[in-house]
């Protein structure tokens, strides 16, 4: 079972290299398993870092935990689904209909605050971390030893109301 988890880490969670489960993925896996550390923040920062690199056009591939990003998105843009306690289950059962690239582009261009799910049924926590000490940022450490800052202004709508 550990081997399956390890391969999932390399293929799905940290797909850094195309054909191999690389050493970084293995490293995270071993630490998470042996020292019972939680990799959630690393996975999140990896997603941000990938989006950043992609926007800077330094990387043309989106190599991060895409399913997590996708599940998050699906629960936001779909119709209100009641009774789902697990976001992944929601994405599996109520995933969006396939559309073309242009259709999605138009969809997002016309997306306004009335069409979005602000409080999906699976969300447990009503509070969230949006500042650290005196700073209006949350610093998080990523996989490639890159420090990245999740910058949120308290007055912005953070997806909660």
């Amino acid at each position, binding site marked *: *079972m550990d*081997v*399956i*988890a390890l391969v*999932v880490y*390399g*293929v*799905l*969670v940290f*797909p850094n290299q*195309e*054909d*191999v*489960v*690389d*050493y970084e993925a*293995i*490293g995270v896996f*071993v630490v998470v*398993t*042996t020292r019972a*550390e*939680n*990799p*959630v923040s690393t996975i*999140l920062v990896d*997603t*941000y870092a990938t989006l950043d690199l992609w*926007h800077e*056009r330094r990387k043309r*591939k*989106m*190599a991060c935990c*895409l*399913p997590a*990003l*996708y599940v*998050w998105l699906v629960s936001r843009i779909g119709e209100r689904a009641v009774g789902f306690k*697990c*976001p*992944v289950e929601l*994405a599996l059962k109520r*995933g969006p209909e396939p*559309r073309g*690239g242009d259709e*999605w*582009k138009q969809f*997002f261009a*016309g997306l306004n605050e009335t069409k*979005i799910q602000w409080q999906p049924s699976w969300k447990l926590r009503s509070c*969230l*971390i949006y500042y650290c000490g005196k700073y209006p940022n949350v610093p998080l*450490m990523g*996989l490639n030893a890159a420090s*990245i*800052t*999740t*910058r949120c202004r308290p007055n*912005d709508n953070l*997806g909660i109301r």
Partner: protein
Amino acid sequence: MELELNMGSEIERDSESSNLKKKLYIRVLENNLTGLRELGQRLGPIQRGIFRKSYGNLLGLLEVKVQVLVVTALAQHYDPPMKCFTFLDFQLVLTLEEHEQILDLPLEGRVHYKHLEQHVSIPTLAGIMKAHLRELERGVKGFPRSIWRHIYIN
């Protein structure tokens, strides 16, 4: 029982996206996860339960079929300095709390993963993988993803 799985090659999809301000092209790597998915489905409910407890909902995420075009379109709305997605009249942020639930790995009472510049020793790895020590001693960067072809489920 040995599993014989159909392994497809990896597919890279080129999809073009653009918006008014800038034209960006994106290439999203989409793995063919069919083989690994089948393997996950062969685990019984109890095994899946144990797996989820240790590693979160990875098996569930594995089954999610990502529509690459949606992610591509979403990525166009990403605002790098603000670290959020900007739309017509609102912004969305990926939060730690949501990711915690998506991955089903509760943060409470657990330390965040800290990246250390240290490599995992080969014997440790061999222990997790139940032998194959000689294979690993070649000093490679990793091992092939097709490793799951060699996984046995009792």
